[in-house]
């Protein structure tokens, strides 16, 4: 009601000041509410993805390069990777079957799933059976303490080796 009354009158200097003050308050409320809303949205979005779960860590050390002599293919079953070393080059191939998640065993020709018969070649490419995709390769790093570290969070293109 007072608004209409004031709109009719020509604003005096005092009323002008009041308008400025009112505009400022409106701005303050607006920034406060909208800002809070934006921060809330961001918080919630960040919150959706947990920063830590209680699963086994996905980056883990597997030992020194000397423990994998050239030409070996050593499966680490509890970590579900196979370490392949050829000469100075070393890589980690997943041993989790891309079909139903069985642990594939290293075989003469590569890998074979004991349950559903999927077969993979030495590089993890599908050569038979129901598996839809080749076995992923994981990033291997040389940790500062001289141990090899497999990072299952990072997949690398097949054929990527690190030199040790």
């Amino acid at each position, binding site marked *: 009601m007072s608004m209409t009354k004031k709109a009719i009158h020509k604003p005096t200097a005092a009323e002008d000041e009041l308008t400025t003050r009112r505009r400022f308050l409106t701005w303050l409320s607006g920034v406060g*509410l909208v800002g809070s809303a934006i921060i809330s949205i961001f918080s919630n979005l960040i919150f959706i993805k947990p920063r830590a779960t209680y*699963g086994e860590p996905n980056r883990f050390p597997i030992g020194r390069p000397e423990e994998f002599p050239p030409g070996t293919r050593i499966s680490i079953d509890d970590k579900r990777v196979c370490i392949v070393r050829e000469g100075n080059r070393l890589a980690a191939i997943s041993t989790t079957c891309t079909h139903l998640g069985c642990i594939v065993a290293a075989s003469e020709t590569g890998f074979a799933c004991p349950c559903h018969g999927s077969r993979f070649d030495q590089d993890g490419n599908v050569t038979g059976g129901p598996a839809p995709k080749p076995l992923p390769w994981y990033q291997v790093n040389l940790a500062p303490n001289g141990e090899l570290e497999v990072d299952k969070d990072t997949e690398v293109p097949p054929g990527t080796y690190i030199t040790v």
Partner: protein
Amino acid sequence: MRVALAISSFVALIIHGIVFYDQFFHQWEDHQTAYFEQARGLATKDAERAALEGRRPRIEQIIVTQFGEARVDRCTTCHIAIDDPRFKAHAEPLRTHPNSEALGDTFVNGRWERRHKFSDFGCTVCHDGQGRGLETFYAHGEDHFWPEPLLGYTTQETWRAEFKPKLLGKEFMQANCAQCHTEENFKSTPLVSRGRQLFFEKNCYGCHRIEGMSTGTLGPDLTEVGKKFKLDYLWESIVEPRANSAVSSMPKFNLSDEDVKSLVVFLKSRRGMNFAETSLERYRARIRESKVEPATQPTTEVAGVSAAARGERLINERACAACHKIGDRDGGIAPDLSFEGLLRDESWLMDHFRDPRSRVPDSIMPAFGFSDSEFLSMTQYLKSLTTPPPTATPAEAYKNLCARCHGEKGDGHGLIALYLDPYPRDLTKVAFMNSKPEERFIMSIKEGVPGTSMPAWGKVLNDAQIRDLLNYIWQTFVREPRRELKARNVPAHNPVAMSGESVARGERIYLQRCTGCHGRKADGKGPNSLDILPRPRNLRNRDFINSVSDRRLFDAIMYGVQGTAMPPWIDYGLSQNDVGDLVNYLRSLNQTN
């Protein structure tokens, strides 16, 4: 209204902002960022640079499943350089964990190989601390009420200030090494070994039980003490036994700080289940416990030193004066040994040493597992203490011989009365004092009371002195003239012949009439016993019962014991034959095999 809305919405924004910042900007991210930057600078090889490529701050965690419950260790989130040898000289938290032989690390081909890999052991297995915490306050457990603060590095606000400097140091970590390395004298845990040695040397094992190690029952069970208490509490309990329980009877041992530290570390390592133990091994240890021989010091005979001198040394070393009075040292718990040579003979002393309860059935003295030759030396020494205390006047005699148990006021509340069972007689109880013939008191003083701590003072005082002492007691404490005793119809000998039927009848009467106070086991610990002073007799105190005549038993049962809760059972319908059966039952309980 507008002003309020504007201000509140702006305040909401600020609070939101603070919460957002607090929740999503962490100190550990700064630590990790700093680490990545410095590591990049330190990297010399392409491989090292490649390893750092793509690494962003994130919560690092190690899940350790081998040691008890699965542990989540997020310590490496802040201590990210823990296994990076390039960060040796950096400040915490970006610092390499030191390598040392003591940790089992080996130095091969110019570099250290860790024995305990962080990916297998985590951090809290050794250090304690709250593995899940991501802020110093939470992770290090700097809260008095949290179970496991960082071992030996953190001191609490509420800890006693004078202990603070003593409780810091990595030596305390040895307590956790001993969680797996349980072998005695493990070379990396000298403090645990020293503490264990002290545990036996200072006779802690006499009172305290540690499963598989000792069987004492006098003090608290220490099997899981390391799990329950923190370093400060353990330290305090050792240096000030009465800090936590005002009635604690644990002596003050006046140990050096180094010894206390060893004991604290040893006790902290006692956590019941060890990581390295299987339940089968634990079961075996429990079975073994019944046969375990407490570790004794090697008995080395010192040439040219007499047995008594060796005994004196042993008695000093083993801190007997922590409980007993010997000369001017007084532990205030157990009887005076200053003139023990006058009171006890050798066989009594030896029996009492080997098993105190063989002579005083309710004694709280632990059966210390020393060797017989040591007991013999100590007996020889005690036998040599034959200087009687001054007893020129009856008052002096009372003060020097009686007051320690019966009290200055004769009310039975002497210095050590609390630790004696049976409790010393209250000499101010007129009803009792007047109900017994004078001869009985004379005999008690002169011959002692078998099965109790009352010694035979006839070996120190002559008959006249005993009579004077009794008169003194009467004048000072009873303060009433002797009353004439009413003649009582009590048989001198049990008229009921000892037989199986009589014992069975006696048992039936006992169960009906006596168990309320004397207990079903006749050990004086019936349900009513707690409310009664003096406590009901332990009727299985063999030495005592066997020393008491039939006449006295009949007298006590039929006419009651004045000044105690024992009623005259003749008033409740027990015939003389019933009492005879009861006496037979009691005698049968205490027959020597």
